[in-house]
């Protein structure tokens, strides 16, 4: 039983850490000159993915 309690505590701590990191990272502005820099990734064909080069041009394919 104690193991489950510890598991939950560890889990909550890690989850909160990730959440805080994610939130703070989102709030941090990109440095000057990098606002429009994105890494283009064409690994998959999900055009709605923010890393896909098509996502900025709007939906190109309407298959």
């Amino acid at each position, binding site marked *: 039983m104690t*193991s*489950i309690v510890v*598991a*939950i505590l560890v*889990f909550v701590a890690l*989850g*909160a850490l990730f*959440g805080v990191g994610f939130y703070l990272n989102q709030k941090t502005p990109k440095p000057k000159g990098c606002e429009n820099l994105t890494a283009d990734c064409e690994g998959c064909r999900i055009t709605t993915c923010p890393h896909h080069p098509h996502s900025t041009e709007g939906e190109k394919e309407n298959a």
Partner: protein
Amino acid sequence: MNKTVKLVIFLGIIAALSGLLIGAVNSVTEPIINERLLASERENLEVLFPGAEFVPLEGASDEGGYVQSAFEVSGEGYAARIETTGYNSSTPIQLLIGFDQEGTITGMMVIQEQETDGFGSKVFEQSNIDTAYIGKTLEEQVDLLSGATVTSSAVQAAVTSTQAMIAELIG
């Protein structure tokens, strides 16, 4: 209320529920997994520790990577199945070693070996096992056997590494 706090609380609740769920599932599956891990080795373990209760130590591993599986023998000590290669590089040597609660070697069983007859194989004769291995404490190294240097030093290295792991388990 501060927004960051709110977000953390939301994620915390999700995480807590997830942790609870995983813990609950684990408490159901763990005994079944242990039983399965034991099933294949129970027969050999019973020889070294007749009538004992065994608990597999899943994460246990030694420095040299010889230990294949390790078990806690409740009230009696530990057991470890080790694998190493001696002279015959195609068939590894497999041994099951029993330790008491202080880490002294109490038993050794040969599961598999195909070392050269009359040389390497002498290491695994009962008379040699009794003198070279049984009764060695954690601080002592097991003996080498002249005339079977390759095999016995391979076993020595593996047993020394296993002893170090057992010492860590005893703490």
